[in-house]
Protein backbone atom coordinates (compact mmCIF):
# COMPACT_ATOMS: atom_id res chain seq x y z
CA UNK A 1 0.00 0.00 0.00
CA UNK A 2 1.47 3.30 -1.04
CA UNK A 3 0.18 6.16 1.07
CA UNK A 4 -0.01 9.48 -0.69
CA UNK A 5 1.64 12.25 1.28
CA UNK A 6 0.92 15.89 0.62
CA UNK A 7 0.69 18.95 2.83
CA UNK A 8 -3.06 18.47 2.86
CA UNK A 9 -3.32 14.87 3.96
CA UNK A 10 -4.41 13.90 7.41
CA UNK A 11 -2.03 11.94 9.59
CA UNK A 12 -2.60 8.36 8.50
CA UNK A 13 -2.36 6.71 11.90
CA UNK A 14 -4.94 9.02 13.41
CA UNK A 15 -7.31 8.45 10.50
CA UNK A 16 -6.88 4.70 10.71
CA UNK A 17 -7.74 4.64 14.38
CA UNK A 18 -10.79 6.82 13.84
CA UNK A 19 -11.98 4.71 10.93
CA UNK A 20 -11.56 1.42 12.77
CA UNK A 21 -13.33 2.73 15.85
CA UNK A 22 -16.26 4.12 13.89
CA UNK A 23 -16.51 1.00 11.71
CA UNK A 24 -16.84 -1.17 14.79
CA UNK A 25 -19.39 1.23 16.26
CA UNK A 26 -21.39 1.14 13.01
CA UNK A 27 -21.43 -2.65 13.03
CA UNK A 28 -22.63 -2.62 16.64
CA UNK A 29 -25.13 0.12 15.80
CA UNK A 30 -26.67 -1.91 12.98
CA UNK A 31 -26.99 -4.87 15.32
CA UNK A 32 -28.61 -2.68 17.95
CA UNK A 33 -31.12 -1.29 15.44
CA UNK A 34 -32.18 -4.76 14.36
CA UNK A 35 -32.36 -6.20 17.84
CA UNK A 36 -34.44 -3.33 19.25
CA UNK A 37 -37.87 -4.84 18.81
CA UNK A 38 -39.94 -1.98 20.20
CA UNK A 39 -40.52 0.27 17.16
CA UNK A 40 -40.47 3.62 18.98
CA UNK A 41 -37.23 2.86 20.75
CA UNK A 42 -35.90 1.48 17.48
CA UNK A 43 -36.46 4.81 15.75
CA UNK A 44 -34.23 6.52 18.30
CA UNK A 45 -31.55 3.85 17.88
CA UNK A 46 -31.87 4.29 14.12
CA UNK A 47 -31.28 8.00 14.51
CA UNK A 48 -28.10 7.33 16.49
CA UNK A 49 -27.07 4.79 13.85
CA UNK A 50 -27.60 7.49 11.21
CA UNK A 51 -25.26 9.81 13.08
CA UNK A 52 -22.66 7.05 13.39
CA UNK A 53 -22.84 6.44 9.65
CA UNK A 54 -22.46 10.17 9.05
CA UNK A 55 -19.29 10.20 11.15
CA UNK A 56 -18.00 7.18 9.24
CA UNK A 57 -18.61 8.91 5.92
CA UNK A 58 -16.75 11.96 7.18
CA UNK A 59 -13.84 9.69 8.05
CA UNK A 60 -14.11 8.28 4.51
CA UNK A 61 -13.65 11.83 3.18
CA UNK A 62 -17.21 12.11 1.91
CA UNK A 63 -18.67 15.32 3.35
CA UNK A 64 -21.49 15.39 0.80
CA UNK A 65 -22.79 11.98 1.77
CA UNK A 66 -22.33 12.89 5.43
CA UNK A 67 -24.67 15.82 5.01
CA UNK A 68 -27.26 13.68 3.22
CA UNK A 69 -27.06 10.92 5.79
CA UNK A 70 -27.52 13.47 8.58
CA UNK A 71 -30.53 15.11 6.97
CA UNK A 72 -32.16 11.88 5.80
CA UNK A 73 -30.96 9.06 8.03
CA UNK A 74 -30.81 10.95 11.30
CA UNK A 75 -33.67 13.44 10.88
CA UNK A 76 -36.10 13.00 7.99
CA UNK A 77 -36.58 9.22 8.17
CA UNK A 78 -37.04 9.17 11.94
CA UNK A 79 -39.67 11.92 11.55
CA UNK A 80 -41.53 9.84 8.97
CA UNK A 81 -41.23 6.75 11.14
CA UNK A 82 -42.48 8.54 14.25
CA UNK A 83 -45.43 9.98 12.36
CA UNK A 84 -46.30 6.50 11.14
CA UNK A 85 -46.02 5.08 14.63
CA UNK A 86 -48.14 7.90 16.02
CA UNK A 87 -50.79 6.95 13.52
CA UNK A 88 -50.58 3.29 14.37
CA UNK A 89 -50.59 3.86 18.12
CA UNK A 90 -53.54 6.17 17.84
CA UNK A 91 -55.62 3.44 16.35
CA UNK A 92 -54.69 0.91 18.93
CA UNK A 93 -56.10 2.98 21.80
Amino acid at each position, binding site marked *: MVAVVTPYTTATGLMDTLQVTVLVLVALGATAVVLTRDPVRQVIVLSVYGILLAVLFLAFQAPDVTLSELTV*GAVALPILLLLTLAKVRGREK
Partner: protein
Amino acid sequence: MQILPFIVVVWILAVGLYGIVTSRHLVHLIVCLIVVQSSTYVLLLGVGYKTGAVAPYFFDVPNHTPAVDPVVQALALTDVVVEAAVSALLLAFAIQAHKRFGTLDPHELAQLKG
Protein backbone atom coordinates in the same frame (compact mmCIF):
# COMPACT_ATOMS: atom_id res chain seq x y z
CA MET B 1 -7.56 -2.74 8.19
CA GLN B 2 -7.40 -3.92 4.59
CA ILE B 3 -10.58 -5.97 4.70
CA LEU B 4 -12.26 -4.79 7.91
CA PRO B 5 -14.63 -2.33 6.19
CA PHE B 6 -15.83 -5.07 3.87
CA ILE B 7 -16.37 -7.51 6.71
CA VAL B 8 -18.46 -4.81 8.36
CA VAL B 9 -20.48 -4.53 5.12
CA VAL B 10 -21.27 -8.25 5.16
CA TRP B 11 -22.13 -8.05 8.85
CA ILE B 12 -24.56 -5.14 8.33
CA LEU B 13 -26.17 -6.92 5.39
CA ALA B 14 -26.54 -10.18 7.29
CA VAL B 15 -27.87 -8.51 10.42
CA GLY B 16 -30.36 -6.47 8.39
CA LEU B 17 -31.63 -9.54 6.56
CA TYR B 18 -31.87 -11.40 9.86
CA GLY B 19 -34.02 -8.55 11.14
CA ILE B 20 -36.31 -8.76 8.12
CA VAL B 21 -36.67 -12.52 8.42
CA THR B 22 -37.47 -12.49 12.12
CA SER B 23 -39.51 -9.29 12.24
CA ARG B 24 -43.05 -9.39 13.57
CA HIS B 25 -43.81 -5.71 13.03
CA LEU B 26 -43.91 -4.02 9.64
CA VAL B 27 -42.37 -0.75 10.82
CA HIS B 28 -39.56 -2.71 12.42
CA LEU B 29 -39.18 -4.62 9.17
CA ILE B 30 -38.94 -1.43 7.14
CA VAL B 31 -36.23 -0.12 9.47
CA CYS B 32 -34.33 -3.38 8.93
CA LEU B 33 -34.61 -2.80 5.20
CA ILE B 34 -33.01 0.61 5.78
CA VAL B 35 -30.19 -1.16 7.60
CA VAL B 36 -29.74 -3.55 4.65
CA GLN B 37 -29.44 -0.59 2.35
CA SER B 38 -26.97 1.19 4.61
CA SER B 39 -24.55 -1.67 3.95
CA THR B 40 -24.37 -0.54 0.33
CA TYR B 41 -23.28 2.99 1.34
CA VAL B 42 -20.44 1.62 3.38
CA LEU B 43 -19.39 -0.66 0.54
CA LEU B 44 -19.57 2.11 -2.06
CA LEU B 45 -17.57 4.59 -0.02
CA GLY B 46 -15.21 1.84 1.10
CA VAL B 47 -14.16 0.85 -2.41
CA GLY B 48 -13.59 4.47 -3.42
CA TYR B 49 -11.34 5.37 -0.50
CA LYS B 50 -7.68 6.21 -0.91
CA THR B 51 -5.40 6.28 2.10
CA GLY B 52 -4.26 9.77 2.91
CA ALA B 53 -6.24 11.47 0.16
CA VAL B 54 -8.46 14.50 0.64
CA ALA B 55 -12.17 14.90 -0.04
CA PRO B 56 -12.91 15.71 -3.70
CA TYR B 57 -13.25 19.46 -3.23
CA PHE B 58 -10.76 21.78 -4.83
CA PHE B 59 -11.93 25.05 -3.39
CA ASP B 60 -8.95 25.57 -1.12
CA VAL B 61 -6.55 22.82 -2.18
CA PRO B 62 -4.64 22.73 -5.46
CA ASN B 63 -6.14 20.83 -8.32
CA HIS B 64 -3.57 18.04 -8.41
CA THR B 65 -3.95 16.98 -4.77
CA PRO B 66 -4.77 13.27 -4.56
CA ALA B 67 -8.43 12.98 -3.65
CA VAL B 68 -10.71 10.05 -2.90
CA ASP B 69 -13.04 8.79 -5.61
CA PRO B 70 -15.92 11.25 -6.11
CA VAL B 71 -17.96 8.86 -8.27
CA VAL B 72 -18.92 6.49 -5.47
CA GLN B 73 -19.94 9.50 -3.40
CA ALA B 74 -22.30 10.62 -6.15
CA LEU B 75 -23.68 7.09 -6.34
CA ALA B 76 -24.14 6.97 -2.56
CA LEU B 77 -26.07 10.26 -2.73
CA THR B 78 -28.45 8.77 -5.29
CA ASP B 79 -28.73 5.73 -3.06
CA VAL B 80 -29.75 7.88 -0.08
CA VAL B 81 -32.56 9.45 -2.10
CA VAL B 82 -33.77 6.04 -3.22
CA GLU B 83 -33.76 4.90 0.40
CA ALA B 84 -35.85 7.88 1.49
CA ALA B 85 -38.33 7.41 -1.37
CA VAL B 86 -38.80 3.66 -0.93
CA SER B 87 -39.10 3.93 2.85
CA ALA B 88 -41.74 6.65 2.60
CA LEU B 89 -43.79 4.54 0.21
CA LEU B 90 -43.46 1.44 2.38
CA LEU B 91 -44.54 3.41 5.45
CA ALA B 92 -47.63 4.59 3.61
CA PHE B 93 -48.42 0.95 2.77
CA ALA B 94 -47.90 0.02 6.40
CA ILE B 95 -50.34 2.71 7.58
CA GLN B 96 -52.93 1.48 5.13
CA ALA B 97 -52.35 -2.14 6.08
CA HIS B 98 -52.86 -1.23 9.71
CA LYS B 99 -56.03 0.61 8.91
CA ARG B 100 -57.43 -2.32 6.94
CA PHE B 101 -56.33 -5.22 9.08
CA GLY B 102 -55.72 -3.63 12.48
CA THR B 103 -52.33 -5.32 12.76
CA LEU B 104 -48.79 -4.88 11.53
CA ASP B 105 -47.65 -8.44 12.10
CA PRO B 106 -46.78 -10.00 8.72
CA HIS B 107 -48.00 -13.40 9.95
CA GLU B 108 -51.39 -12.10 10.96
CA LEU B 109 -51.64 -10.11 7.73
CA ALA B 110 -51.01 -13.28 5.73
CA GLN B 111 -53.52 -15.24 7.80
CA LEU B 112 -56.18 -12.66 7.16
CA LYS B 113 -55.62 -12.94 3.48
CA GLY B 114 -55.64 -16.73 3.47
